[in-house]
């Protein structure tokens, strides 16, 4: 299939994952991403895969852990409170150095919150969540098409680095329909079975053992140093950004995902009024595109961070640009999504008329 089809985001992303070679899905329902497991339950058996609705999110992520140890392409998806329940498993998977993909359709929080679009799990996704010194690669698509394309990268990156890759979206991307094209179909039979997979000894001289438990301090420190070296390599090579209308920009909005998409309209409106505004949209939020942002030190007179959260993305922008570029911030919470005009009003309030 290379022609465009009109699909709901949550279903298109599921199909994108299957095209990327995902054959195993374990999950537990939660709005606003239920169309993803529903689609998986129908489609995975058709392609020789397996779908299991687990009894809880804790069970789901541990089933993912098990499948990941067998060296297959596996994922789960959930929404904020469900993702919180999975943090222990994500830490174990990271500590064991096995690959998987986890999608979070972020919703309003804290607690049960509501089912409206939010970006308030940013810090949980990029900085922490589970215990210990681990990192995930975190991809933040702004459209359904980009999400579908990024799923191929998500599984490739997970396999390459033996890391958890998170794809963070929100209910708006999940519920929306857009034309989408499935450009890549990974042949799962052509994927090399990893030599660390726990799928039987097959005459090998050693047994593969996967664990995150290392009681000996020196052993665990050595393992941590290996992980840190890997994370440093990922940080140096895998960060991505979209730079929109930045060539002559005097000001920039920094935003990701849905918020960046809305801010793009703000940029167009501002440009029509003669304000030289551009958009810096991190596609990877970990590794954060710090260097790409720092390129504009000296060029821009201000950067406005816009997010569906309270100063979470802003922390990373501050780390990248603090003291070098005047910073502003505008965010909304509780599932409220501001329109392009509200962002422009916030920009003008904080940076004058941008001239």
């Amino acid at each position, binding site marked *: 299939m290379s022609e465009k089809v*009109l699909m709901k985001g949550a279903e298109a992303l599921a199909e994108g994952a299957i095209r990327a070679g995902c054959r195993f899905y374990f999950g537990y329902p939660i709005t606003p991403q239920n169309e993803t497991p529903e689609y998986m339950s129908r489609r995975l058996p058709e392609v020789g895969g397996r779908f299991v609705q687990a009894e809880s999110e804790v069970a789901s992520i541990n089933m993912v852990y098990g499948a990941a140890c067998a060296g297959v392409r596996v994922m789960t998806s959930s929404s904020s409170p469900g993702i919180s329940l999975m943090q222990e498993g994500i830490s174990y998977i990271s500590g064991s150095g096995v690959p998987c993909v986890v999608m979070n359709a972020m919703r309003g929080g804290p607690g049960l919150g509501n089912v409206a679009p939010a970006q308030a799990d940013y810090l949980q996704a990029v900085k922490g969540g589970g215990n210990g010194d681990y990192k995930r690669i975190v991809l933040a698509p702004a459209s359904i098409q980009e999400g579908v394309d990024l799923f191929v990268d998500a599984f490739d990156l997970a396999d390459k680095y033996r890391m958890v890759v998170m794809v963070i979206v929100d209910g708006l991307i999940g*519920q929306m*329909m857009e034309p989408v094209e499935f450009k890549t179909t990974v042949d799962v039979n052509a994927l090399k079975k990893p030599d660390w997979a726990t799928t039987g000894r097959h005459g090998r001289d050693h047994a593969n053992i996967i664990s995150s438990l290392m009681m000996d301090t020196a052993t665990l420190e050595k393992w941590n140093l290996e992980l840190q070296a890997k994370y440093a390599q990922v940080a140096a090579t895998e960060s991505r950004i979209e730079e929109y209308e930045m060539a002559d920009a005097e000001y920039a909005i920094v935003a990701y995902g849905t918020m960046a*998409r*809305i801010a793009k309209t703000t940029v167009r409106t501002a440009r029509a009024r003669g304000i030289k505004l551009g958009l810096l949209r991190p596609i990877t939020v970990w590794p954060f595109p710090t260097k790409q942002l720092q390129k504009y030190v000296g060029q821009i007179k201000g950067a406005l961070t816009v997010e569906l959260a309270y100063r979470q993305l802003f922390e990373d922008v501050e780390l990248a640009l603090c003291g070098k570029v005047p910073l502003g911030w505008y965010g909304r919470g509780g599932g409220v999504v501001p329109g392009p005009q509200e962002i422009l009003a916030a920009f003008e309030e904080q940076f004058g008329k941008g001239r």
Partner: protein
Amino acid sequence: MEHNVVIAGFGGQGIMLIGELLARAGMEQGKEVTWLPSYGPEQRGGTAHCAVVIADEPIASPLLPEPQAAIVFNRQSLDKFEPAVEKGGLLVVDATLIDHKSERSDITCVYIPATDIALQLGNSKFTNMVLLGAYLGKANPIPLESVLAALPVFLTGKKATLVEVNRRAIQAGLDFVSKP
């Protein structure tokens, strides 16, 4: 060039369907499209709406805080979206179900007895298509033919026999607003 519209009414009136039909037809025309539904703890009989954007350029924001047009199927939706329609925009109202006129003088208002027209065609369920036809006639976002051609995608199996009458409903709405 961009056309956008909010379609709003009770759940079950076929609001999401005509939005999707419009988006689908736009896609077949090679346009960029987005279809964004209201979602959440919805219930039968509750209000629902969707936002459709059809554009030549890649669509940035799919949100429509100030839509160019609104098609409203009930009074609550009229009250909610009438103030939001942009200056110079279009408001399409089912005059059978909504006994109220807009007080705005800076937008074009179309009052069409859509449910009555649908009943004349045999079933009030065609009301959504009548209103869609009225919108197409006034706003002309994409050619009528492309919308008619997309109908069979949504009416399959047993419903395939309804393609023709739905086409007539769209045409009836369009004819109503095209009268001199």
